[in-house]
């Protein structure tokens, strides 16, 4: 510790710490909204790189089906297992199917799928763009009169936002199926009744609000990943930092915005 730092009072040091971290938060928020607004601006300008959009949609959507499907299926299975045991205490096993389907479509599938995609795609967007930044590939794009936001960020953010709802729809189906397998196969529930109860209290609105949530989470996690990558500084270490913070920040923002979205949508 330097003499200057040692002589500083703890109160001053505390305020400095708060100030520094406060400024960092403002900086992050500023970068997020800069990337968000420039992305929206460039999305509706020519040229449209359809091939790149499809490539990114495959990367975000198709390639994520196994991990999202597996997560949803086991969540459905564990939900059925837990609720069946719990509900059996007051003879309400018949409602297991409704609880599984409602909690999956309204909450668990969108949030868990988005968190998995934040880990899988948010991190890779930050690492990819961050590496391009530190190796001057982004400068090279500017130098070739190509707008990097339009060329790199727009298809990635667009593909993630578009692909999250179908992924969540798949997650809904597999999760419900997982619950069915456990309840019927392991716990001995009546298959016909289980199937009936799955849809009895399920509204289309429940499914749609889950899908809308998914699209918003997709937008948040991709913009966060791109913003972290786009403004990376400090070589390989900086890329590592950007990747970690893309996942952490993306996940936290998803969880916080989940509360507010639920408040608005339901």
């Amino acid at each position, binding site marked *: 510790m330097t003499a200057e730092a040692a002589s500083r009072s703890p109160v001053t040091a505390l305020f400095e710490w708060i100030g520094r971290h406060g400024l960092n938060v403002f900086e992050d928020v500023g970068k997020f909204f800069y990337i968000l607004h420039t992305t929206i601006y460039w999305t509706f300008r020519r040229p449209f790189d359809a091939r790149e959009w499809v490539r990114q949609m495959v990367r975000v959507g198709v390639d994520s089906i196994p991990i999202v499907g597996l997560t949803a299926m086991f969540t459905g299975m564990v939900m059925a297992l837990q609720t069946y045991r719990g509900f059996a205490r007051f003879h309400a096993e018949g409602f297991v199917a409704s609880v599984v389907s409602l909690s999956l479509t309204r909450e668990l599938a969108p949030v868990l799928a988005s968190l998995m995609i934040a880990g899988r795609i948010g991190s890779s967007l930050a690492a990819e763009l961050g590496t391009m930044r530190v190796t001057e590939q982004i400068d090279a794009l*500017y130098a070739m009169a190509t707008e990097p936001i339009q060329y790199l960020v727009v298809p990635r953010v667009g593909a993630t936002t578009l692909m999250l709802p179908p992924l969540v729809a798949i997650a809904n189906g597999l999760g419900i199926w997982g619950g069915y397998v456990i309840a019927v196969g392991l716990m001995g529930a009546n298959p016909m009744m289980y199937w009936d109860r799955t849809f009895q209290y399920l509204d289309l609105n429940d499914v749609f609000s889950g899908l809308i949530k998914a699209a918003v989470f997709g937008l948040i996690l991709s913009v966060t990943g791109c913003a972290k990558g786009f403004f990376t500084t400090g070589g390989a270490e900086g890329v590592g930092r950007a990747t970690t913070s893309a996942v952490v920040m993306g996940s936290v923002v998803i969880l916080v915005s989940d509360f507010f979205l639920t408040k608005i949508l339901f």
Partner: protein
Amino acid sequence: MANTRGNDRRVERDGLGPAIAVIDVWKSFGDREVLRGINLEVSRGESLVIVGQSGAGKSVLLKHLIGLIPPDKGHIIIDGEDLTNSDSARCLEIRRKFGMSFQEGALFDSMDVFGNIAFPLRHPATMSEDKIAARVHQCLALVHLEGTETKATSELSGGMRRRVGFARAIAHQPQILLFDEPNTGLDPITSGVIDSVIVEMREHLDVTMVTITHDMKSAFRIADRIAMLRNGRIIAEASPEAFRSLADPYIQKFLAGEPVEEEVA
């Protein structure tokens, strides 16, 4: 400031102003002043080499020329048009006059060599794929890398990466070529090859060139005029022959590769 202009290799086109004019450009990053009142002109067809120590502000100056970094104060005039006062669409148009080769090549690693060189021809897509292929072959021939079209950029050596970077920079037939430290990190033989490729490109293409380097051997090989940047200021401009005989003790030490006690002006 030493200023010995003029050189027999320098080509001037009558009636036209300089290709690039830098007028009193200042730039700071935080408290650090990197450029402190740069004034510089580059004539059409001229090859200007800007030399200076690491951290002297060379790369920052080069990035100002193409509008990658905006100046805090001052003007960058390209072909008579003020880059600093242009809107983003006009900036993009002005930038198309440039081809830039980056320090480590800055090749897109998601593409092969062909994809990299074809990039400026495909964005915007104004040429047919056949014409693009022909142009890519032509550019690769110019940098002596025929037959490498399908190679991944990760398979290339340092020298080859630079040359593919050159080919990409010249693909869209720019009027001005910028080279950012083309020899850094290369062995003397490869470095010589890079210099001769630059000289050849100069002979075959009708371009203005600005190169930044700290390698004086390379500077003498490719320059019509050398400018010395120190502490954010141009301290000398001269033809290569005149540059060698400049009396400034700092320049003499720089040429001899001797340590110098860095003064902070």
